[in-house]
């Protein structure tokens, strides 16, 4: 099982790198779907979660459904309604972004290694992946102009936080009602953002955030 965990984590890391290098918004949504499924699968494979009741199993199925199907589906619908397919002229170029991604990974390794954080053993790779995902999400939000990429960056950030939440804390704290509430917030959040995206596109004929510059001091 240990190897399986590591494989999942490596896939998550790869998805992060791919998303930084990809210029097609459709591909980006697909990558997010894969990442969502991987993130939801991971807690199932961790050792201290092995004694899970039927409630837990149902919850994880719902989570895969929401993170892997519903949220990417919503993003896909939003993408279909707007005519933009590609991110043209990002603030930071694709090669530079990829390079930044590698630096982020190195920094995460450094943070996990050097700080000697007191935490459950055997989770070093996991903490590193989580920190990378969170930072890359931030990076994506800041380095792209299109509003939809910012939503994707936010989702990536949330995935990273979720990794820390489920994987590092003990199973005994997991109350599925609470976890479900978090997921529901995320889902509704993406829906609200999708509606605003649609309105931005309607009002400005584009979803470039540079157009949103009317309110200033």
């Amino acid at each position, binding site marked *: 099982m240990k190897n399986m965990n590591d494989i999942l984590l490596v896939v998550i890391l790869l998805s992060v790198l791919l998303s930084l290098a990809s210029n097609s918004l459709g591909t980006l949504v697909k990558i997010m779907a894969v990442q969502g499924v991987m993130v939801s699968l991971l807690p199932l494979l961790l050792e201290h979660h092995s004694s899970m009741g039927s409630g837990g199993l149902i919850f994880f199925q719902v989570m895969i459904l929401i993170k892997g199907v519903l949220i990417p589906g919503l993003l896909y619908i939003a993408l279909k309604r707007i005519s933009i397919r590609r991110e043209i002229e990002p603030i930071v170029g694709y090669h530079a972004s990829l390079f930044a991604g590698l630096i982020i990974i190195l920094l995460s390794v450094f943070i996990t290694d050097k700080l000697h954080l007191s935490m459950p053993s055997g989770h070093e790779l996991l903490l590193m992946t989580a920190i990378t995902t*969170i930072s890359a999400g931030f990076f994506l939000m800041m380095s792209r102009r299109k509003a939809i990429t910012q939503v994707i960056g936010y989702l990536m950030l949330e995935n990273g936080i979720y990794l820390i939440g489920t994987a590092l804390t003990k199973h005994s704290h997991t109350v599925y009602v609470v976890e479900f509430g978090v997921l529901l917030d995320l889902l509704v959040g993406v829906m609200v953002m999708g509606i605003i995206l649609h309105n931005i596109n309607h009002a*400005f004929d584009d979803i470039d955030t540079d157009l949103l510059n*009317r*309110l200033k001091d």
Partner: protein
Amino acid sequence: MLELIFLLPMLTGLVTLVIPAYLGRGVLIVAAILHLQLTVMAWLGKLPVYAERFFAQTPEGMLVLLVTSFIFFCISIYAISYMQETEVSNEQVFPGCMLLFLGTMSMVTLADHPIVLWIAIEATTLVSAPLIFMHRSKEALEATWKYVLVCSVGIALALLGCFFITLSIDIAEVDISLSFTSLNQVAMQLDPMWLKVGFIFVVIGFGTKMGLAPMHTWLPDAHSQAPSPASALLSGALLNCAFLGVYKVHTLMYLAGLGEFSGNILIGFGLLSMFVAGIFILKQPDYKRMLAYSSIENMGVIAFGVGIGGFALYGAILHMIHHSLIKSSLFLSAGNILLGFNTKLVDRIGGLIKYFPKTFLSFFAGFVGISGLPPFGIFLSELFILIGAFQTGHWFGAVLFMFSLLLVLAGAAQIVTDMSFSTEEQPTFGREKLLRVVPPYILLSASVVLCVWMPGAMFNTIINTIKIVGGVIHG
């Protein structure tokens, strides 16, 4: 059952979204009255908690709940008249989202489980976004986008903070259920390093929502673009709810013996917010933005007071109550001005005293109150915070505090006198309706009354709130 306090507005809110707008307005006011009644019943201890794992009746939560409920009641009276006079499409969205907003905020005040608290605060962002977008202009769209994105990202960091706090239980191998009540009991045993990291993330996260600088960027836009009743609710109730999140974790830090660490962080954010607000309020061309910056300043004052602790903490809690009352009154008066002149620009407004004497009186009195002059409560609370700061030897902080207050007073005074007494401009719409004029007066007089006479139950609740964090009332 205590949970009714948030279930009632949530359910009626959902119903209101689908029924016609004229019925929705009726539901809004009935639900507001029922909510106030339920709140009073909870204060009298008549409502037992059903889901004890997630919810509890805490003194700080009850204070915020009472303020929220009272303000909402006044705003709902105002909103009925206001929405009839403004043109919006999808009118039933307004009362529906107002009620959902009330429901989620009430949930924040009752939450005892950190993640439930987080869920409720994130939900307030989502249900209030349509309120900001009510007018459907390009500016409103931009404000809504900023609000949803900045607050969601900020609050996501607070979730990370909550997870770190959970981790501090696991590392220390303490076996308790995850709730603030049980965390407070074992605070000394928790892992201090992860608690500190958790607190930093929680302050950044909920601080974003509370409007602390430098994470305040969404606040002036959202407050100026939302319809005035919604702005009043955002400023008077929502900011308090976010503050409650920070305050609960600060309490935990204090009990864990890390009060100085968390206090200093709060002092830093508080002073920065006050200073930034003071700079931006000078020469502000838009009076609703002016009020929004004043909210940032006041949240800074509260964070500063809580950070200092002791006598200043008492001042901070008082400040929270009075700021809510006065600021929501000001936003309602600003709404009356907006209806009369159809502009948010200070330059295009003049002669309030001549054309709208009643609104002038509430707006000017509100300005006097928010500037910290007697007979309003902010005079007392700021005085207490200042005394507390001097007692504990925060000389630099106290001086910067006074300087920022002066900046804000200067900026606001210029704007308010300009709007009230210059005689060049004419209003486009002439009537002052009773329903729109009375609520600001009720809110203002509540602040005056609380200054001279505070109900015993309320005083005791404040004492219970601050006692646990080392707050005192005898300087």
